[in-house]
């Protein structure tokens, strides 16, 4: 009985704040099965929401900012709907897998506002966010192409999809731009969560002479890092570089050899979902919700980028110069990075 009393009080409290919600802007997101700390775009998106929340004095919870994790594909719709019913002002769906769910719910919950990350939903109350992943991976390719000593470079994809293809195409273009002699060994793991496959592919690549490997494969990439760390630990004199994806994965690359710390992460191709999410939330809060529009975040918008280059790379300075050079070209529109393998065929950096 006691608990019931408390609850009524709480409910009254909620109605009170309910009136205030005109002012408090509530924002939430739905993750895919990877969860908010997938070291990839869910994590990055959550970071953006947290930053937005903190900047605006919100608290985590039902009346501030929050997230719901999906345990299976079937949960996306339920979770998105749940949040809409909790009167969140802006709800993000993270990942192209949520496209259909958002499309459907946006039609039903016409009052709610949605942010669709990584896919386009053409509804008045949905703002779509896309990234030019190819621009980030182009820069990663530049770094790889300049770093490699064997002229053999690897790319591990998770599962074939438009997004991963953008990563691949951009990366290949970047390598070709600075090092036309380099060959690129591409392999898809057909899974985003199988570290052992990542490890085996990486093992194959490194042992065939590849010295830089870029992955766009989620947790499958853990296997790449593991392999690179192990090889480095065995023979510290050799170079086994790995390039991270989405967020700066430098923490995954630490190898301690005889008391000295090495790192096998060359750099990471950043996809700043946090920036985009924060940006869209701010716009929405200010009443400028870009409903029905698709915003593409590229280098120019600071939506993608390249992380710090590893200090241990001998040609670090050269890389930084080249990266800067290409960044400028891309931002200015002088260089259009191919986003598909088809475009890649006709691409030339000149």
């Amino acid at each position, binding site marked *: 009985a006691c608990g019931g009393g408390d609850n009524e009080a709480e409910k009254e409290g909620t109605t009170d704040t309910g009136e205030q919600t005109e002012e408090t802007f509530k924002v939430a997101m739905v993750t895919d*099965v*990877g*969860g*908010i*700390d*997938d070291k990839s775009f869910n994590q990055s998106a959550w970071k953006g929401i947290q930053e937005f929340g903190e900047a605006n004095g919100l608290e985590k919870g039902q009346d501030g900012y929050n997230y719901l*994790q999906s345990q299976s594909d079937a949960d996306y719709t339920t979770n998105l709907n749940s949040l809409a019913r909790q009167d969140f002002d802006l709800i993000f769906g993270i990942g192209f897998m949520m496209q259909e769910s958002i499309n459907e719910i946006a039609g039903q919950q016409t009052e709610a506002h949605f942010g669709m990350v990584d896919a386009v939903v053409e509804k008045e109350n949905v703002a779509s966010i896309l990234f030019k992943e190819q621009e980030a991976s182009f820069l990663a390719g530049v770094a790889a192409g300049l770093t490699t000593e064997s002229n053999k470079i690897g790319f591990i994809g998770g599962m074939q999809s438009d997004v991963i293809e953008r990563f691949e195409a951009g990366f290949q273009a970047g390598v070709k731009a600075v090092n036309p002699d380099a060959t690129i*060994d591409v*392999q*898809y793991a*057909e899974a985003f*969560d*199988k*570290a*052992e*496959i990542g*490890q*085996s*592919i990486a*093992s*194959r690549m490194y*042992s*065939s002479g590849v010295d830089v490997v870029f992955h766009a494969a989620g*947790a499958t990439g*853990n*296997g790449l*890092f*593991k392999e690179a*760390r*192990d*090889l480095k*630990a*065995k023979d510290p004199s050799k170079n086994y570089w790995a390039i991270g994806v989405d967020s700066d994965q430098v*923490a*995954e690359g*630490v190898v*301690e050899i005889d008391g000295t710390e090495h790192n096998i992460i060359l750099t990471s191709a950043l996809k700043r979902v946090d920036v985009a999410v924060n940006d869209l939330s701010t716009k929405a809060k200010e009443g400028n919700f870009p409903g029905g529009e698709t915003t593409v975040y590229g280098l120019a918008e600071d939506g993608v980028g390249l992380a710090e280059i590893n200090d241990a790379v001998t040609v670090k300075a050269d890389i930084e110069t080249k990266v800067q050079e290409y960044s400028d070209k891309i931002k200015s529109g002088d260089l259009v990075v191919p986003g598909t393998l088809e475009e890649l065929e006709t691409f030339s950096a000149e």
Partner: protein
Amino acid sequence: MGLMDILLIIIPSTLLWASPLILTALGGIFSERSGVINIGLEGLMVIGAFSAIVFNLSTASVLGNWTPWVALLVAALAGALFSGIHAVASITFRADHTVSGVAINLLAVGVTLFLVKLIYDKGQTDIIQKGFSKIDVPILSDIPFIGPLFFSNTYWTSYFAIAVAIIAWFVVFKTPFGLRLRSTGEHPMAADTMGINVTKMRYIGVLLSGALGGLGGAVYAQSISSDFSHATISGQGFMALAAMIFGKWHPLGAMGAAIFFGFAQSLSIIGNSLPFLENVPNVYLLIAPYILTILALTGFIGRADAPKSIGTHYIKGSR
């Protein structure tokens, strides 16, 4: 790529892949040889992987390079403890073994993810710094031909798993304990009339399966995934179960089956770069390990007979 190059990649990768399966399948053998079906192997691996990673993360600074080995021990203990639930349910409480095993799988995932969220306030752990790493076996790796193939670029855990398989074979088939264990799985009443404590033997069998399943999960986590999340153990336990059946409940057979799985899997990954396979669409390579297993079972292995009294409850005084 020459044949040698191919083997140089395939063999270590096969062994790496096989070692968690071998250990876990051995666990299954101990349990099922004692008469208790154990489809909870997947769950036991989850527990092993979880406890190894958590232990590793919290003690690496103290234990240094010994961390992964001590973590194996901890994982074995945790696995044994957890399998105690299966033992109590299916032996003492006379639960259907399959049902209890399914519950073990669900419970393991639920409990570990719940704990990860409770401890770290997020859905997965950080990456461990002190995992098992690649080695060249001293001396042996210098043997021409054999050395590079079997003793270079591999992990201690591969040899560990093979050694455990040989020990398990020895224990199951050469020692009084093994004879008694097998008798309770084949004909518990006969064992009882010979003064063997059926309940005790079955408890030991199940607890050993927990310890070995825990080891399997810990080896996977510390030599492959390096962290723990919902995706760390995703089906390896079922593959181990298949290896156990494929190997006809024999430790060395299960080891062979696990190595076969590892080999088929590695082949599917390296296939793209083999001259005679490069034009084969990827999907065929991806399904090859599974199809090969089915064909192998159909073609030359044929019927595999489980221990006779597997899945039954031994109740004194009934027949």
